[in-house]
């Protein structure tokens, strides 16, 4: 399929996967914030580095293989192990909560998400130009 080929080349699938990861991470951060006062609650997070490594490996495989045969669709951020260990054991119930760290993580994550949305928008915009047969 032509359209399929078009949306599966370049960095579109990578950006889309990263969008999915940041959206999932936002949900987990939301859960952590909601449970700020829950005794014994273990904070959850995703291993962003591990997911990026998976994407990198897949991109390298795509470069090596024939075009159109490598898909990114099976890389699911939800499959990444949810990391329950926090940054220290300050509280007696071992729930390592820190509003500052959580809010910082959340705004950083939201900024990344918006960046990916913007990148995707630019890519789709260039499709638009192609379809209209004119330069920007």
């Amino acid at each position, binding site marked *: 399929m032509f359209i399929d080929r078009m949306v599966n080349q370049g960095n579109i699938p990578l950006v889309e996967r990263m969008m999915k990861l940041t*959206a999932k991470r*936002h*949900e*987990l*951060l*939301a*859960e952590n*914030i*909601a*449970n*700020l*006062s*829950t*005794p014994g*609650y273990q904070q959850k997070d995703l291993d962003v580095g591990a997911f990026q490594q998976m994407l990198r490996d897949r991109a390298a495989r795509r470069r090596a293989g024939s075009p159109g045969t490598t898909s990114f669709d099976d890389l699911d951020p939800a499959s990444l192990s949810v990391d329950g260990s926090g940054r220290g054991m300050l509280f007696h119930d071992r729930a390592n909560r820190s*509003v500052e760290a*959580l*809010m910082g993580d*959340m*705004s950083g994550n*939201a900024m990344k*998400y*918006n960046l990916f*949305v*913007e990148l*995707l*928008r630019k890519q*789709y915009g260039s499709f638009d130009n192609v379809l209209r047969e004119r330069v920007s």
Partner: protein
Amino acid sequence: MMNSLDIGASGLAAQRIRMDTLSNNLLNMSTTRNARGEPEPYRRRFVIFAPGQEGHPEKPGVHVAKIGLDQTPFRQRFEPGHEDADAQGYVRYPNVDMSVEFVNMLEASRAYEANITMMETSKQMLSSTLRLLA
């Protein structure tokens, strides 16, 4: 993304109930009688949070699992002229400590704000996703 709005709402509701409980404690910090007018001081209430949404523990979020009664002993004050004083002249006052309640209120309102900010961020992320279509 819609999920995070639900999660935030559950956090807001839980902190709201906590705030209600705390203000109830503060209001009744000098109450020496129960609703029937008998000399029984008010017992301090506290909320217990648990992960999961109300009625759906498997869904991410938070809910109030229980509102408990604080079993610590009542404060005793020597007021022989008081109507509710015992034979030795001591009046039993509620086991509410104002400073503890204030600290808890501060924490509850900060947690509430954190949930609000999180929901604002979710909304903004959602609207930027919708801009993909336009």
